[in-house]
């Protein structure tokens, strides 16, 4: 009997610790499918964050390094500079990437570090029980913004892709979501593009995936998807914020007198 569907080889055959309805599982699978389809598992090193996906080193079948909180882009830089032949990716959450690791993120991007960053944004510190994150929406109630995030005292959320798209070293900055099948397919396409960028030496690629946290949002998985669609996506619009390949193609067309895309 032909096998129609199975666990990607790049995903270990173990039980994941994520909560019911959490979208980490989907995103893990997409990364693993891309690694399988590109045939790069044996030459790939992943770097885990601190946060809910801290145990991702047990879930991906490639070699893995666990980084201190926020430092994954620096650890990945070390791997890639030492071994340019390896494919290197980080898998990070919003607290890790956009708060404690802001410097490492921005500077890996501005150096055009030839790595892939998978950025899972659910607007909360999930592992520690739902505190306010740099991407928590204004008004959102968390355990450390019990009256709702007030930008006058707690500041505004960070738009990571928009910020990184201003840097010359960024090759790809794209925001996707995993709320619907088309969005999931688009996310996989962008993850593949990011890994291909690395192989072409294009520079720093970040795929920001809007995600849910039913446990800490206090919603059912279904309600969480609804909130993602009604509150998060309007605040963090999906789309490609920077793609050097599109920019180059447009420049080439303009040079030839054609219309830009």
């Amino acid at each position, binding site marked *: 009997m032909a096998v129609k569907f199975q666990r990607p080889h790049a995903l270990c055959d173990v039980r994941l610790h994520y909560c019911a309805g959490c979208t980490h599982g989907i995103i893990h699978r997409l990364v693993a499918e891309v690694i399988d389809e590109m045939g790069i598992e044996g030459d790939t090193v992943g770097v885990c964050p601190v946060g809910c996906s801290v145990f991702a080193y047990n879930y991906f*079948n490639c*070699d893995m390094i666990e980084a*201190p909180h926020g430092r994954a882009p620096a*650890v990945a830089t*070390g791997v*890639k*500079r030492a071994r340019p032949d390896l494919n290197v990716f980080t898998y990070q959450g919003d607290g890790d990437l956009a708060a404690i690791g802001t*410097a*490492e993120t921005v*500077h890996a991007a501005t150096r055009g570090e030839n790595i892939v960053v998978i950025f899972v944004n659910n607007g909360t510190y999930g592992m520690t029980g739902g505190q306010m994150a740099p991407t928590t929406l204004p008004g959102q109630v968390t355990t450390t913004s019990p009256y709702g995030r007030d930008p006058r005292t707690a500041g505004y959320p960070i738009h990571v892709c928009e910020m990184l798209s201003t840097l010359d070293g960024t090759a790809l900055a794209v925001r996707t979501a995993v709320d619907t099948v088309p969005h999931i397919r688009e996310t996989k396409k962008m993850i593949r593009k990011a890994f291909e960028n690395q192989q072409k030496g294009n520079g720093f690629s970040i795929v920001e995936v809007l995600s849910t946290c039913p446990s800490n949002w206090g919603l059912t998985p279904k309600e969480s998807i609804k909130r993602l669609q009604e509150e998060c996506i309007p605040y963090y619009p999906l789309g490609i914020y920077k793609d050097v390949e599109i920019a180059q193609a447009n420049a080439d067309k303009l040079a030839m007198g054609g219309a830009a895309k």
Partner: protein
Amino acid sequence: MEKVLMKGNEALAEAAIRAGCKCFFGYPITPQTELSEYLSKQMPKRGGVFLQAESEVAAINMVLGAGGTGTRVMTSSSSPGISLKSEGISYIAGSDVPCLIVNVERGGPGLGSIQPSQQDYWQATKGLGHGDFRLIILAPNSVQEVVNLVVRAFELGEKYRMPVMLLSDGLLGQMMEPVEFPEIKAETADNSSWAACGTKMQREHHIVNSLYIEAKDLEEQVKARYERYAVVEANESDAECYLCDDAEIVITAFGACSRIAKSAVNKARAEGIKAGLFRPITLWPFPKQQLLDATKNAKAVLSVEMNMGQMVDDVKLALDCKIPVSFFGRTGGVIPSPNEVLEELRKLNGGAQ
């Protein structure tokens, strides 16, 4: 072998390249600057990687990444920068990743001063980060010894799978001395059982990690590490003894300060004072047995340091407090003079002048 005149920082950098260091990650800080500058010139020409990181924090994590692939890697900094690196050092130690960390010490605390100091003895030997762990700490006292110990640092780190610190200071880093580079062939250890460098689809994946969520698992890991530390203590402690055999007063001093102490010992001997010098070369492991042997005829021990006496505790513990230990030092970047040390020896000999 031809001798060349080099600054300590530059000689250290050259020795690292010759010892097969492939990657350097650092951040500018005085007084280690020449080390990074030398490597920024040389590494690209000699097949290595030089990268100036956005911070000390990032630099040490780049070391974790490169070292995690089994690549020979180093970073260097000076005192305040080492404080910033301490997070990463703890993770590196907890992940059993070998690497070389250089501290060209300056005055502290805080921004302190940029002059030579030994104020990071405690930090280096007892407090390089959170958790139960050790680093091998090597303390050279000449530019030539800097060169020799760099090679040994890489070898020891890889042999025992642990980070090693070379504790230099502003004096050793900045002064020029004739130095020769012997034919260096640093030994490399087999890292195929742990390094994260791609499975090639031929083995189980390797995980370079310091997290053990079950307390008993973590305890087991830490205890296994301490068994390795016991082997390091048994085999790798090192010291130099100078005129200790008949010495009634033994000075303990490390690094650049031991050179000053040695001058004082010579002056004291000329006056008939039976003085000697004991110089730990490894600060961890502290050469306890060697100190006991060196002080068998001693009536007094004087610890001479460029700090407020940070090594005194280790000296007393090694001697089990059986010989009185006194202290003389200058701090904040002030360098003691041989005559100041000589005066202390005279006092201990029973006659201050």
